[in-house]
Every structure is written in structure tokens, then in C-alpha cells.
């Protein structure tokens, strides 16, 4: 059902007509260009509650959401708003009380925003609950059984993004709402109103109008399979410099593997490629197959680390297959190279990841001195591979803590063509992951910021993109 006009603001706590709301459970797309306004309804991507009477219990998969003052129960909801292209004029959170005895309450709870969007639906307990640190959005008075209630959350929901909202109460007679597991008809809803028709924008791969340099590539690339063919086809349509994050060929880095696997695919772009070596390249003694194939483009032969500039960026290709320890030739070279750089933004890449949630290869602590040097010189981005999938982390300091001021954003771009690996325990600050789509990771290097974009193989839709400013 298409809503032609945003519902006029109601007093918080007003009971809505159940019929009108039930009809708006799916995404509403107003396709008519004449429509003056439109609404889009989102269901939670996560919802749970915590209970101080059972501090280590998680309720994320249950059908109810309890809020109470004694024992203290708090509800956590998270919504991801996406595909909204017009200015947002309002947002309302709707919750529905359970159709069971006792779900009613003299106090429906106080709704507040919180900054954490990383809390886990199945891992959040009273003992590890996120801090409710945001603005107060509204308070519900008495709530009845089996009814809808609405709170204006327009103060925080202002466009596309991920939003967390908590409900708490000090009244010892608690309320119970339906969770997203109760079924779509009574699950919580976030209704976003926009000025003009809301359209869902499909992920698009756009050509680069800015004229700023493009750096595009991946690691773990060529074997007898067809994954490298799919990713090389993406490069055909993306101009710029091509990087590799190692394991250019499988299994042994031989000349024959470079000629028969890599050369017909990624080899089409060899003239604009700045590679880095991986452990499989080093399965041939001294990685001679790698150095012979790439020649001077791989930096000084046998050394495997070098740097170059692109626009306002300094780019460093490093070698995780030789010593990286503090005081090693490579680490000393890196520090002097960074000290001599006149560029304000820096990106580095190599094979083995310092941070990864992969199940096959543990985080490589041996790369730590390189990460430390890059952090000391205020670098922006580190790209690696080794685990055969895609992962993006938030900017972090060298010990892996979130660091929004000086942190380096780490990517694992091991989706160049070799068969996918599983993820293990998802590590802190991991923001995006995928292991079913080959692709390339493209950077557009602006004067004082960068865009990243995961470009998927033809026929796949996984996408991840964003922009971050240089330090």
C-alpha cells in the first residue's frame, strides 16, 4: 500500500489503528513522480533485551522484548536505513505490545538513542550491554495489550545509516512488545518519511568523474579456476593503477603458472600493475617466477618493497614474506621512505593481514612493525589478502583498538579469484565481510580523502563503499 502523505505527527503514546499499520509492513515505494511525499518502512536488523535478574542471559532470538523497572529490563533495537534518496522529513518508531496477559503497563518506557551500532543480537547480555548514551526521543505512557504505539525518532534518523535505539523504564510494572522474531506483522517498525518519492537505488559502478587517481586491485588471484577471469574483466572497465596483495598465482609461483594462469587474465593489465608478493609466490625459491614476470614493476628484484606517488597520495608496496621486524632492512627502509614522503595521504599494501577474522590464517603479528611505522607516519589505509574473502575494519591503532583520529583502516582483499575461505570468530572493529563474491577493491584517491568501493564480479550484487578523510 502506498502512503501518499506522511502521517501527521501524533502525540507519543497514541494508539494507532492496527489496520493502517499492519498494511505498511513492507517497503513502500512510491513510483509516481507526482507524489508529494512517501514513506519507507524498515524492520529491525537486530532486536533484543537484557535483564538484570539474569545478567548472562541473551534474549535475541525470543519473540518478545521486555522493558521493566524491576527487575530492570532494557530493549535494544537496531535499524539500517538504506535506499532513501530524498531528504528525510520525519521518522517514527512503532512498537506493538504482545497479545498476552501482562504485556500492558502503566509505562511503555523511555526511548533513547545510543551510539553503539555493533552490539550483537545473540551476544548482548545485561553484563555486556552497550551504553545508552544518546538523546532522549520520547516516553510512552500507559500501554495496552495487543496495540501499536509510536514515538517520533526524527531527531536521530535523518537519512541512510544504521541507528540504535534503547527502551528503558523505571516502573516496576513492565511492558512487553513483539520482537522481529514474532513475525513481520507485529515486529517493530521504523517508518521514514521523505519529501518526494523514495526510490531504492541499486548499487552502481560508476565511472570516475572526478579525475582523481584510481587504485584498484585484489590479492589471491590466479589458478586453474575462473575467478581471476571474472575479476580481470572488472579491471577491463576500471582505469587507473592496478595493485595486487600477493599470491598472484597458485600453487607455487612458477614461471609456468604466471604464463598460463595470470598472463591471460590480470596480465592484460600488467603495464599498469604495481604488485606485491605472497607466500605462494615464494613457493618458488626467491619468488623468481614473480620477479621475472613483473620485472622492474615489482621494485628492486628479490627485495619486494617499493613506493610510488599517485596525485596527493604516497603508496607503498611491501613484502610480508621476508623479515618485517623492527630494525629489519624493510622496516628501516619503510620509515625512511615515509619520512621522505611529501604527500599528505598514505596507503600501503602487502599480503599477510595484521587484522583478520578469517578461519584459515590467523592475524599476522609479524607484520606489526610495518603497521606501527605506518601509524607513526599517519598513514590512512592498509590493504592485504591471504584469507580468501573480503573484510573491512574501522580505523584502528596498531593494537587493534578503534582510533577515529589517527587510526588506519585495514582491508583484507583476498577475493581476487582463488577459492573462498571461511570466517572464524569475527574480530573487534570488523565492519564488513563477504566470502561468496569475487571482486576488486577500488580506491579513488582524492586530495584529502579516499573513496573505497568493492566492485563485484558480473552477476553478483555484494557491495561495500564509503569515504574517509585523510588524517
Amino acid at each position: 500500500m502506498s502512503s501518499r502523505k506522511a502521517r501527521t505527527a501524533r502525540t507519543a503514546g497514541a494508539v494507532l489503528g492496527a489496520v493502517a499499520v499492519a498494511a505498511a509492513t513492507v517497503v513502500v515505494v512510491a513510483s509516481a513522480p507526482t507524489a508529494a511525499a512517501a514513506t519507507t518502512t524498515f524492520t529491525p536488523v537486530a532486536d533484543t533485551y537484557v535483564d538484570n535478574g539474569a545478567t548472562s542471559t541473551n534474549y535475541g532470538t525470543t519473540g518478545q522484548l521486555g522493558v521493566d523497572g524491576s527487575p530492570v529490563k532494557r530493549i535494544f533495537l537496531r535499524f539500517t536505513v538504506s535506499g532513501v534518496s530524498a531528504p528525510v522529513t520525519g521518522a517514527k518508531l512503532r512498537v506493538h505490545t504482545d497479545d498476552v496477559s501482562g504485556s500492558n503497563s502503566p509505562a511503555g518506557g523511555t526511548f533513547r538513542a545510543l551510539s553503539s551500532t555493533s552490539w550483537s543480537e545473540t551476544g548482548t547480555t545485561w553484563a555486556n550491554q552497550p551504553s545508552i548514551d544518546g538523546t532522549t526521543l520520547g516516553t510512552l505512557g500507559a500501554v495496552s495489550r495487543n496495540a501499536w504505539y509510536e514515538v517520533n525518532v526524527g531527531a536521530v534518523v535523518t537519512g541512510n545509516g544504521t541507528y540504535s535505539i534503547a527502551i528503558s523504564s523505571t516502573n516496576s510494572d513492565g511492558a512487553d512488545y513483539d520482537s522481529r522474531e514474532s513475525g513481520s506483522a507485529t515486529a517493530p517498525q521504523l517508518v521514514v518519511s521523505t519529501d518526494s518519492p523514495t526510490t531504492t537505488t541499486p548499487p552502481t559502478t560508476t565511472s570516475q568523474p572526478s579525475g582523481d587517481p584510481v587504485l584498484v586491485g585484489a590479492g589471491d588471484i590466479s589458478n586453474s579456476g575462473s575467478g581471476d577471469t571474472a575479476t580481470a574483466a572488472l579491471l577491463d572497465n576500471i582505469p587507473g593503477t592496478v595493485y595486487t596483495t600477493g599470491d598472484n598465482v597458485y600453487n607455487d609461483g612458477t614461471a609456468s603458472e604466471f604464463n598460463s594462469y595470470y598472463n591471460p587474465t590480470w596480465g592484460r593489465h600488467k603495464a599498469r600493475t604495481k604488485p606485491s608478493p605472497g607466500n605462494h609466490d615464494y613457493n618458488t625459491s626467491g619468488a623468481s617466477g614473480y620477479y621475472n614476470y613483473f620485472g622492474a614493476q615489482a621494485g628492486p628484484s628479490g627485495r619486494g618493497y617499493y613506493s610510488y606517488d599517485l596525485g596527493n597520495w604516497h603508496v607503498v608496496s611491501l613484502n610480508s614474506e621476508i623479515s618485517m621486524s623492527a630494525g629489519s632492512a624493510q622496516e628501516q627502509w619503510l620509515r625512511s621512505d615515509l619520512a621522505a614522503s611529501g604527500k599528505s595521504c598514505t596507503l600501503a599494501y602487502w599480503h599477510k593481514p595484521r587484522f583478520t577474522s578469517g578461519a584459515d590464517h590467523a592475524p599476522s603479528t609479524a607484520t606489526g612493525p610495518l603497521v606501527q611505522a605506518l601509524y607513526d607516519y599517519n598513514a590512512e589505509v592498509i590493504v592485504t589478502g591471504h584469507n580468501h574473502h573480503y573484510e573491512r575494519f574501522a580505523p584502528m591503532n596498531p593494537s587493534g583498538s578503534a582510533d577515529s583520529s589517527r587510526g588506519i583502516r585495514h582491508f583484507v582483499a583476498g577475493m581476487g579469484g582463488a577459492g573462498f575461505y571461511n570466517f572464524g570468530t569475527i574480530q573487534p572493529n570488523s565492519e564488513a565481510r563477504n566470502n561468496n563474491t569475487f571482486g576488486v577493491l577500488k580506491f579513488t584517491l582524492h586530495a584529502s580523502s579516499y573513496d573505497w568501493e568493492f566492485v563485484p564480479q558480473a552477476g553478483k550484487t555484494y557491495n561495500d563503499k564509503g569515504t574517509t578523510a585523510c588524517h
Partner: protein
Amino acid sequence: MMTVRTRILIALAAAALLAGATVFYVSRTTAPSAQSSAQPPRMAAVVPPDGVDRRTLQVLTNGVLGWASATDPQSPRGLTTVKCDRAYTSARTVACLRPVDALVGTKLSLLDAEGNETKSVPLTGFPNRLKVSTSGRMVSWTVFLDGHSYATTGFSTQTGILDTKTDAVVHSLEEFSATVEGKPHQAVDFNYWGVTFTSDDNRFYATLGTGGKRYLVEGDLTARTVRTLTTNVECPSLSPDGTRIAYKSAVDGDPKKGWRLSVMDLSTLRSTPLGETRSVDDQSIWLDDATVAYALQRDDGVNDVWSVPANGSGQPKLVAEGANSPSLTH
């Protein structure tokens, strides 16, 4: 309206609770008492709080040890603060492969009811598989090794066994004498993974990868021998009645194409593909003689525990969302 005094009291109470929750939270309201060895371990007693009588799974929720119902996917969960990359419990032996630390490798930890480590075996590698024999006596594990990559498989493993009764440790099954296709054989590309013990705590089954094949082997711990039975069997898991194994079978014999969860009758070596058609990369468990459970990973690395009938019929059923590494608590 909450008074300032109430706020402070609540804050203090919350802080006290948080401070007290360093390890296993045990559902008790009385003051902690010294735990004598005569008391049953408390961990198995920590069940979801609604008191429904049912079987409970020990699971990991993104690396955090806890419990979920084996029968009701919407039931509340219990979570501890213990971190494992893989966990398994049987007959009150709780085994945990600890996450690799920045300074030290993983280790096998056996935990008591409070989550305290009672035994440990330091390991080199990256946690992959872990199983405890039905009696609780034998603990077996597999870790991935980095650094030596053999061309035939592209990965290297190390599989070991701890006898919790004698504390004897087999550090690597590669120490055992192997008979491959009827002939004594040993090779540098040997990799073992995924052990499952029989009820005598001596005979076991496992996978041996060598020469591009993945064999089902039957082993004898006392004799320190293994022999191959058939091929294309990985991560066997013995049924409670001891007559079948659930395992992962590479599609068309090629692990690059993924794995079909299957059950093999050990008396005939005949195999039945199960009603789960998505690729399962796990050492599955048996919920009972008719049901197999396993973790399946989503594209974004989040896992869920599913179950499917062991006779090839039916459809997969969601058991525990957002969880992996399941095992039944007894």
C-alpha cells in the same frame, strides 16, 4: 521519576554485577560457597532460565562460550565471558581451543564449572576442530598450520589427542604408523583432521589427506596405528549407536566445489547424502541417532546451527541463530 539516590544505587549495583561477571556466571542467588569436588559441575546446570525441561547445547556465539536450547530456537541463551575459537563438551569435560593471542599461540584448555582452566596443552596453529569422546575421557583437536603449504592440498594441519585420565598427549597423529590402501605408507604431505572416538575410547575415526585424496581412516590409539577405509570422507562424527558416521563429502570429489553433508553406514561403507544442500564445512554432531546438527556460515561470516534428519529425508531446521561449535550437554 527516579531519584538521584536510586540512580546511584542502581549504578552501584550494575557496577558490582559487571565486576562479578569476570568468568562464568552461574545462576545462583546465594552467596558463593567453596566448591567441593563432590559437587556436580555447575556449568551443565546453567540452562536457559525459563526452566523448561529440554536438551541444551553448548555453543559459541562469535567466540563466546554459552548455551542454547537444542529444541527451541527462540529460547533465551546463556553466555559466559570465556572466549574460545572452538569448544566441545561431553560428560562434563569442557574443552576449549583458545583464540590465538598476539604473543602466544592457541592452547587446549579444559575448564571446570566456574570456567577455570584445570588442564591445558599449548599448541601451535589456528583452531579448527575439537571433539570430546562420549565418556568425556578423550579430547581430540585439529589446528591449521601456517608456513608449510603442500601443493596437493594448499593447507597443513596438525591433529592431536589428550587422554584426560592419564594426561598422555599425542601431539600429532602423523607419529602413528599408517596403512594406506593396504600398504604401509608415510609421506611428507600427510595431514590429519577431524577425529571422532568410539565408545571404547581407543578406536577412532579421522580424515587423512595425502596425495590429493581425503581418506576415512580407522585408528587405534594404543597400537598407534591408522588404516584407510575409503576416500572422500572428511570430519567424521560417530553416531551415538556407533554404527554410522556423519561427515562432509567433497562435491564431485573436489573440495573447491564445496561439501555435501552425508551419513555413511560403517558396516557397508554406503553413503547417504542428507537433506542439506548448502555446503557444510564443519565436523557435525548427533543430537540423537536420527538427527545431525552442524554450523553453517552466512556470507558475512555469522554462523547458525542447523539440524537435519540423518537418513537423507526432510529439510534443514534452524536450531540456534548466530551460533556455532555446538555440542550436547549431558
